[in-house]
């Protein structure tokens, strides 16, 4: 018997301790259809037996927009700088909604799919990725409603709108990195099911969702440490036709922290992934 790894006749799949690395990325591609199916299932199932159905995707951000407008615009009297305050909030809420839905979806995804993890092989990365896909679809719905809403306020799209996909990608990457961490941690420590709503509650205030950063120069650099700040500013810049000022040093910081988040997230996820089936 020769070593199967060196035998040219029929290269087989070798299962060994610590060997899963080699096929991983190829498998991920091979299972891309599963990614689609899981996302499709989650969307399909979410609004079953809900009377309002898909309307929920809109109700929640609408209420949040109202609340944030009230708290920041009316009570705190933050300046809107010529932009209708609800629109300002809504533009910031879009990336935040994308992040928070992907983040909480990812956190629950592996535990929610425990029966799959313990019975079938597929690259586990598919599961948090499908949560991301679901969040992206929600964003799409919201975006479709935001545009006519901004027309009502007399804000018309400019060439900047074409750059929006870049900021969507940024928000997705942030959600992906954070989602990887929360997913892997939730599998191991169920505490993170309680921690992640906290993170989101705090997050909405340390991210400039309800206020403009260009009127807070002292805080700008601090806020830039949160990679989502840049995404929020970017969304505003694209959607509101450049009325708001975009903070370029903030983007650099944001890109760096995002890369760090995604890199370490991938590393930690891959590291713990092989124990998922045993621990879950």
């Amino acid at each position: 018997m020769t070593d199967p790894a060196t035998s040219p006749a029929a290269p087989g799949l070798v299962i060994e301790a610590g060997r899963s690395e080699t096929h991983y990325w190829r498998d991920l591609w091979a299972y891309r259809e599963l990614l689609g199916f899981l996302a499709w299932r989650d969307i399909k199932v979410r609004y079953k037996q809900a009377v309002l159905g898909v309307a929920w995707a809109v109700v929640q951000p609408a209420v949040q927009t109202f609340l944030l407008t009230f708290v920041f615009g009316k009570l705190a009297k933050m300046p809107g700088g010529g932009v209708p305050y609800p629109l300002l909030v809504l533009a910031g809420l879009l990336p935040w909604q994308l992040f928070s839905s992907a983040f909480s979806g990812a956190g629950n995804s592996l535990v929610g799919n425990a029966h799959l993890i313990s019975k079938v092989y597929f690259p586990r990365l598919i599961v948090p990725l499908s949560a991301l896909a679901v969040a992206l679809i929600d964003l799409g719905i919201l975006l479709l409603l935001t545009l006519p809403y901004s027309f009502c306020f007399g804000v018309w799209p400019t060439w900047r709108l074409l750059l929006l996909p870049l900021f969507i990608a940024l928000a997705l990457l942030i959600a992906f990195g954070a989602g990887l961490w929360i997913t892997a941690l939730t599998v191991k420590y169920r505490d993170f099911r309680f921690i992640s709503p906290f993170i989101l509650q705090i997050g909405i205030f340390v991210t400039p969702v309800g206020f403009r950063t260009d009127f807070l120069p002292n805080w700008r650099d601090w806020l830039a440490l949160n990679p989502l700040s840049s995404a929020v500013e970017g969304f505003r810049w694209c959607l509101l036709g450049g009325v708001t000022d975009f903070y370029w040093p903030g983007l650099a910081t944001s890109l760096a922290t995002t890369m760090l988040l995604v890199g370490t997230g991938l590393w930690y996820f891959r590291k713990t992934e092989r124990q998922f089936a045993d621990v879950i």
Partner: protein
Amino acid sequence: MSSDIVIAVDNLSKRYVIGHDSRHDNLRDALHHTARKLWRRFRWGTGFRTEEFWALRDVSFEIKRGEVVGIIGRNGAGKSTLLKILSRITEPTAGRVTLRGRVASLLEVGTGFHPELTGRENIFLNGAILGMRRDEIRRKFDEIVAFAEVERFLDTPVKYYSSGMYVRLAFAVAAHLEPEILIVDEVLAVGDYAFQKKCLGKMETVSRNDGRTILFVSHNLFAVHQLCQRVVTLEKGRLFSDGTPEAQIRHYMGANVKQDACLSLASAARALNPVGHAQLRSVSMASGHAGSPWVLPFDGVLELVFTIHVSQPLHTLELGLGIFNTQGFEIISTLSSWQQELGPAEPGEYSISVNYGNIELAPAVYRFGVGLKSNAGLEDYLPEAFDIEIAPSENASRLNLSTIRGAVARSARFKIERID
């Protein structure tokens, strides 16, 4: 390695670390544990002792293309762990497996079925989870639906399905996978009998016609026997034996078809809380022969002799026997009181002989459950008292027994008359 071998398992081991020191499902425990570990290491230079458990230890075997191999073993023998490693759900601790070909594993029917989705949607979802491509599922869709016999309910959410329909649909998807290697665990334990037969039939055709390799784990020895050419027995994580189904299954029955002509029942497992005024002591098979006292030829007469011990005077005494097949179904039930009253009995030793005549059970292994009852209540009950094997005899081969499907091969008197 010869290219004919599609699965090569080489010194495969899997270790689990058990004990509450090792797993921390919540953060507080983990932090607490880490702190204590550091403290101990600091104080005594040692960490925690963890208890290891080898679910699999140095298991090696090879499976050739087109073979259908059964894996049997008691609970905890490592069957599921082996399948989980082969299906890449978990990693081995040591050793390696080489798989040649597309693997599909079926550790459960209906993995990923979502109750809210319709039958149609679940076919696609489940197919994708099992590794089928969308166009592949679409191509086989009608076939799957026909196999599952659920046409009318295709657009009903599966939560409204009966459990039988659910299982049928789930298995139908799995049965239409086209992997080179199919790994199946216990899936036939569910579903009605007719459908089980259909599944077995499907798996048989698949392996025979398409040369696919099947690895089949089941407690259903009947199914293993019917389907597999080879059986691997695991015991306590190690490979115990590997050979023909007949020999392996006989072993699995607990090396149960014993070699002692007179079998003591004193230490047999007893169920319930018997009164205990009368106790079963031993059993022997009067019709058995010297070499294999518990093997009865198919056309032989089954006569059992029990010895019992009575410690209190009893007004009535009744012996009950149940004969179970390998699937655990009670096939024949017998009570002594149908024929005669065995009591009253004074304290002492008695022998009771039971003559079934020709029992006409199809060749296989059978398990006896035996109970004693008196006016005071249930005196003694051994749900798994002993096993016997009915072997095909020379005469039986003439009877063409291999074609019978029933548990009982009952003769009847036939007569033909011309009536036109």
